[in-house]
């Protein structure tokens, strides 16, 4: 699958002005909530590289994505940013027969 990641201007601005610790990179990460059915939420975090990461370059910024997360991402993923919610990544989804938060 060919992944295309795009950043809105506000996301790009924020990324360029965020101080990132040495050895850390921005990463699109799948956050899973489970129990009965799973729901996947994508977030942007800053952490160390993982063994099977793919790296995507966008305007000079390297964004890491692990294999697991890659499986769940749409082919085209947009990253946005606003002050209230922080970074917003792609489309999250829930697969569940009993879709409340988890259970």
């Amino acid at each position, binding site marked *: 699958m060919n992944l295309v990641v795009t950043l809105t201007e506000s996301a790009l601005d924020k990324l360029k002005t965020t101080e990132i610790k040495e050895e850390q990179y921005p990463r699109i990460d*799948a956050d*899973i*909530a*489970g*129990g*009965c059915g*799973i729901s*996947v939420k994508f977030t942007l975090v800053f952490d*160390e590289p*993982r*063994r*099977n*990461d793919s790296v995507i370059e966008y305007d000079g910024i390297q964004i890491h994505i*692990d*294999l*697991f997360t890659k*499986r*769940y991402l749409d082919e085209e993923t947009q990253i946005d940013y606003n002050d209230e919610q922080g970074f917003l990544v792609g489309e999250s*989804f*829930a*697969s569940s027969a009993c879709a*409340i*938060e*988890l*259970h």
Partner: protein
Amino acid sequence: MVEYNDLIFEISRPGRVGYSLPKSDVESVDLQEKLPKHLIRDEEEAADLPEVSELQLVRHYTALSNKNHGIDNGFYPLGSCTMKYNPKINEDIARLPGFSRIHPYQQAETTQGAFELLYNLQEELAVITGMDAISLQPSAGAQGEWTGLMMVRAYHEQKGESRNKVLVPDSAHGTNPASASVAGFDTATIPSDENGLVDLEELKKHVDSDTAALMLTNPNTLGLFETEIEEIAKVVHDAGGLLYYDGANANAILGKTTPGAMGFDIVHLNLHKTFTTPHGGGGPGAGPVGVKEDLIPYLPVPRIEKDGESYVLNSDYPLSIGRVKGYHGNFGILVRAYTYIRTMGAEGLSEVSEGAVLHANYLRKRLEEHFESPYKQLCKHEFVLSGSRQKKLGVRTLDMAKRLLDFGYHPPTIYFPLNVEEGLMIEPTETESKETMDAFADAMIQIAKEVEENPGIVLEAPHTTVVGRLDEVQAARKPIVRYTKEKDAQKKKDTVKA
């Protein structure tokens, strides 16, 4: 045998039947002529029922059932679900014609034995929970919670108080806040402290004159016993709130202590977890609810009571919240639970909780080195590990869960409770042997090694199951939940082309 992997609709052939009737000795009528036109369905509307022989039907469903994983074919350490063995004697007793061939509309004089069983079960559960009275009506844990909360509401209203807030710890089972909101309450979440227990200071901050109740699961979903339970109870009671005990994890405390002794006012049990009635697959459950004396007037009606030598249904409780379930609850399930309690006896039930706790701690110790273990203290019936170490190596808990399928195990509960990163929640139950638990621990340790040395095998798992790694993304985004002939025909054409 490939044919039995097909859908029952695909096996179907026009005109094939699974019955034979004697030749009719009355003249047949053409329904098309006799019925009013608007009642006759045309081809399009006709129910598309499969047409198969009896043997095809039996093979089809037997083949399906063989693909299932159940307690009878393997280890099932699904945390929070208490997937323990259901003794076969429960089934024998539930099938006795005196229980299986009666009808709730029969005259009470003709079903005295069934009522006696229900009455005795109420009495036994009252002792087990330390409560004063029990209702057997609720048909699941969640419905027991809701029933309890409706009683909480009725109790405060009767006292002329309006209390709208229900407190729920963040480690609670999702049904707790859900039941509270279905019962019309607002919920407030109490954060856990670093030991995974209710943070008393936080609790004190949230308790006020609007607090209707605290719902507490003990041991909680991390498998931890609330060490400050008496203080917690006092804080809530002092503010005029009631204490609701989610007793779905009673497997850990049977015969050792009771919610009543801990100062709680209401409790529900999950008979399908703790008392060996069939569990999962959406089958009928039972979530009896017990109360202390002050709340008896609000229990669901009709109540089963003893009047001299006979058993009667009594609906004469004007403050009752009413009926919450048809008839007397899921009767067949209640028979099984009663059988379990009587065959185990008080001592046996006490050994159950000892076994459940010992087994969980044994497994926890065997696995602790190989996975992050966020809570290090002794646990009760279950424990939670974190896959955070493996996540750093690019393998997730979901991948490891899939890999466990290759070893023939049902994976533990994953990604729950939500306060543990990449959580794996393991509940071995008391009914497993040491050999089974050791083999499972060996498999988990092997998987942890694979993550380090050969992660591909974990990332592509499962390898030995009937179907491989499912496309969960497709399943979540574009679920196809209904079979239609047209779609199926199209799919076949597409496959041929490809």
